[in-house]
């Protein structure tokens, strides 16, 4: 895989992610779609395993680093970055896609759509679990100083994962169109039920 291409596409999608989330937000608890998850799925569908996991790790790290948590009370502890919820979620998602990809029609946007929904759901469960565990285990000065609403957050994330199917279709179609630029080594000639690389 050509890393510069993946990084540039990742940069564009990461920059647009919060804007798209706010613009397309629906309902209460508010569900919003992800733009980065389809890229994780796309890379995991075509790249070798280790490359796909590294890409998922880097993208998850960037999502975590751009999100400040806690600090939701004036004069309280300042907000902070928690690295982990999206890194672990994205790597788990990449592992899932890499595992099932021999059974998938890889060059079909509908595949990316369906897998984006599943992976976003997995990320939702992983991220909410990690943040919930932190809330339960770390108290006092060790805590994050926020007020994590685990159930409403999980509900919003799971609804968002359904919504991510829509962005998965659009982003998937664009990424498939850009597919030659990525120069995946094992992208050609893979048929359904062939052996994994």
């Amino acid at each position, binding site marked *: 895989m050509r890393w510069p291409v993946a990084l540039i596409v990742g940069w564009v999608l990461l920059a647009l992610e919060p804007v798209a989330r706010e613009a397309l937000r629906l309902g209460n608890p*508010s569900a919003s779609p992800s733009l980065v998850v389809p890229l994780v799925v796309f890379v995991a569908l075509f790249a070798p395993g*280790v490359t796909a996991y590294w890409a998922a790790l880097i993208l998850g790290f960037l999502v*975590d680093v*751009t999100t400040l*948590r806690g600090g*939701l*009370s004036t004069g309280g502890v300042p907000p902070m970055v928690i690295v982990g919820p999206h890194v672990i979620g994205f790597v788990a998602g990449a592992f899932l896609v890499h595992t099932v990809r021999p059974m998938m029609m890889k060059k079909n946007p509908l595949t990316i759509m369906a897998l984006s929904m599943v992976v976003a759901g997995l990320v939702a469960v992983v991220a909410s679990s990690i*943040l919930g565990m*932190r809330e339960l285990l770390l108290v006092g000065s060790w805590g994050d*100083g926020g007020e994590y609403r685990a159930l409403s957050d999980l509900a919003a994330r799971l609804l968002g994962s359904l919504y991510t199917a829509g962005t998965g279709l659009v982003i998937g179609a664009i990424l498939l169109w850009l597919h030659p630029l990525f120069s995946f080594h094992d992208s050609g000639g893979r048929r359904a039920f062939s052996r994994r690389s």
Partner: protein
Amino acid sequence: MPSARTSLTLAILLVVVLALLPRPLITWLTHLHGPTTVLLAPLQQPARSLVVWFRGPGLAVRADESPEMQVLREQRDQYALEIKQLRQQVEDFRVLTRDLSRGFDLNPSLAVKQMTVPVIGFGADTSGGLLTVRAGRRDGVSVSNVVAIRGVHLLGRVVRVDERSCSVLPITRMSKGEAVGGVVMLSDETLGPRVLLKTVDGTSGVLRGLVEYLADPSGVAPPVTITPGMIVRLQDADTRWPQSAQMLIIGQIEKTEPSPDMPLRTVVTVRPVHEIERASEVMIRIPDGDGSPGGPGTTTGGKP
């Protein structure tokens, strides 16, 4: 030299450990937020402005608006579509100037600098709840500075400052225990009863609170009636809001209902006039006299 697979395994293990470490041991990671945000801002900020332009400024629907006012609003919107770009720019500057002067008029005894800055947006994961704007330490912004939309509508306050950006806690995303004191305006000039507002939840974009029971001072007239459409302004000098924030507009009363516990008292739901999520530009109110330098777009006002 470890192989790519070994490095990956070690990296994942490191992340798992980091994810569960207590706060004091991972605060250093927060230093990565500023540079990453600045790296994404060149694309994020124009995209946000484009979305805001496409969807409109996000004014709350006014249930009590008269038909004449609605007609006027429609005419204004039609007119706005027809005017040319240059004329629109002139109008924007005029509105900006008016808002700036109105902002200073709120607290004429206080000298504040108002700096207009673009909004970068919420983080990639919106559950974070903090809004990042493109002004930081080098522009003179510091923690606890008050942030407003168009000079008079309270958005929140700065809770973290980086060199080139800062994070703002919107009033609608405060934690459950946090409250903001306000006063219901019975008319443009008449202050009414006080109200202590809290967030309903982190994403609803509204505040709720119990209004103080305020009988007529003469004892003859019935207690003041709170109705939807009334404006609530910040009046919270007792707590952590600085003087420069007092009397900024918190929002408009959207709904009133009797308190379940105390039927004589009213519970109000207040929605900010401008949707915080759709703000593309905000004003940071920096108390003057702290020696902090002003950045581009800084204006000074208040007491000369």
